[in-house]
């Protein structure tokens, strides 16, 4: 098989480019242009003034997790461990127990997500057969002053509401 071979010309071989100094000055001219225009008018900077100006979060954004509930307030999670099994960061720690709220048989008695280990890949959401875990809280910044505070307990996860309506969430491709 003889394909058509195109030999690309290697750049930087002629004297002009090998002098290097001229190219250096050209590069410096480019950067200085940016510097000068930004110095003279800093409103041109490509910067979001973050804490004051918040980014727009879409329904597909994978934010902090939450556990969803049925309309009657009982949790959807049945402690099937699918999210824990699927989690590549192994940040979900579940302990299962007998269900006490009248639905089926099983529920988590402990459902911890270690946000310091979470990589926000969303595999837990994909794995969940009950649509019990979602990442639609719209919370993209989690802060705390001790490690413990980054381990979300089942109550924290249940309390957080979703940031989007059901239609928006579904439209987001979930």
């Amino acid at each position, binding site marked *: 098989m003889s394909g058509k071979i195109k030999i690309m010309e290697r750049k930087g071989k002629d004297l002009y480019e090998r002098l290097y100094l001229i190219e250096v000055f050209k590069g410096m001219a480019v950067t200085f242009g940016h510097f000068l225009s930004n110095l003279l008018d800093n409103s041109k900077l490509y910067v979001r003034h973050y804490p004051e100006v918040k980014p727009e979060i879409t329904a597909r954004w994978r934010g902090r997790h939450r556990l969803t509930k049925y309309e009657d307030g009982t949790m959807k999670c*049945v*402690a*099937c*461990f*699918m999210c824990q*099994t699927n989690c590549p960061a*192994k940040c979900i*720690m579940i302990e*299962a*127990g*007998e269900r006490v709220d009248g639905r*089926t*048989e*099983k529920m988590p008695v402990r459902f911890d997500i270690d946000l310091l280990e979470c990589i926000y890949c969303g595999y837990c959401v994909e794995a969940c*057969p*009950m649509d019990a875990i979602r990442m639609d809280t719209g919370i993209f910044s989690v802060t705390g002053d001790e490690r413990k505070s980054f381990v979300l307990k089942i109550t924290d996860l249940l309390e957080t509401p979703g940031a989007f309506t059901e239609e928006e969430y579904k439209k987001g491709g979930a």
Partner: protein
Amino acid sequence: MADKVKLFVNGQEVEVESGKNLIDAIGAVGIEIPHLCYHPALGADGNCRMCLVGIEDGRPPLVPACKTRAAEGMKVQLDTDKIKKIQRDIMELELINHPIDCPICDQAGECKLQDYYMKYDGQKSRMTVKPVLKAKKMDFGCGVVHDQERCVLCARCVRFTRLITKTGELGIVNRTDYARVNIFPGRPLANRYALNVVDLCPVGAMTSADFRFKQRSWFLTKSKGICRGCSKGCNIFIDHNREKYKDDVIYRFRPRLNEKVNGYFMCDAGRMTYKQENDNRLTVALLDGKETGLNEAVEALRRAVSQAKKIVCVISPNNSLEQMFAIQKFAANCNAAVSGYSDGYVIAGDGDDFLIQDDKSANRASFALLGIDASKAGFDAAVNGADLLICFQNDLSLSLTADALNALAGNCKLAYLGSNMDACAEKAAIALPVASATEDAGTLVNVDSILQQYAVAVVKNTPAFDMIHVVSQLGGEIKNCFEARAGLTAAVAALKGIDLEQVPGEGLALTVSEVPNVAA
């Protein structure tokens, strides 16, 4: 050995054992025929129809593989469109009333229905009517939880209670959609092998109350082991898992097939012995009941050994052959008497003619191999005037009354090497933690003189030293298991010519004449 016959599976020639049915014969060469109701120990029932295969020799178009014997020149068809459609249809029928509650089902991951759905079915349900609702979470007694909705009515459990335990607590009542496995009113499961139905059940209809919701089966590491519940030495799977930030914990024992020893089953009491491995462990060295470093405690015991005038080493019938040998050598070095006194381990009349034995220790037969005296008289003679008594995993509180043990602990210094915080460890002046049975490797000889080996299954986060290592630190000449095995083959007549590093998985029967039955 059985004769071999040649037959064709999907046009491919295979050589299988004759006299077996097609499922077993072809399964032995690695070709699976799906089946739900057939079980080698329970025989063919032929009610699930999952194993229907085609045979091209003028027979009826479809035959159940479980009822068909392998024969020379047979042409078995497994992959024709017709067979595949049959399998798919059977699966669809099985799943009509199935609740598909895999997320909350303990069987998920080791469920035949799941496996076969993925392999032979894989289609969406066409059911539009509501499934028949049946009872869930029924307590069948003996720690068996039954879920009627998940049941595929293969009747393995029913046949088990009829054929194996011969107690017949279970039956199938009603017909068609309303057929269900049930107990007789007010007559729950009441036999000592009842939990075997959990293993037998191909789906999640029978689950164990003890294991319920503890772990998902795919997290468990399935290590091979040998049960220490009695002198039968049933082969088991040790299902353990190290959860994140936690220790390696055993969650259940399951029987492992060994035709020579236990077949497919084990007793309920044996299953529950896994709790001894998890609970009430001796994890730190104790000096007069106070926690100390291991090195200090070993040093204290070594000093006690060097100062003592008369030492008695009490070996447990649960110690492995290698451990016993190492202790014997150690005792010989420091002029100590050796006793295997452990009458408390035997519960007379508790055994039956199936698996359960009177003797609740695993390795008493080795006493005879090594010539260790286990009599009460010998023990009394040895203890008389002794000032140091070292118990190697032997819980004397089982064999002696509390008063006798107190008197003994008063008369002489009591040292204890063991894995559990038992009554003897509490009384001991020096208690040293050693690796437990599942954390150590060794050799056992069971009541039928079958020599079996086990390997290290569980590795704790901070592993305890094994017994032989601790004994060697006390002054024993044998440093590890390998040295002990080399010494054993050289020293013990019955083990001459046996390579203890190469014991086959199903065990090795020792010649009976050389091992007298020592069931005390």
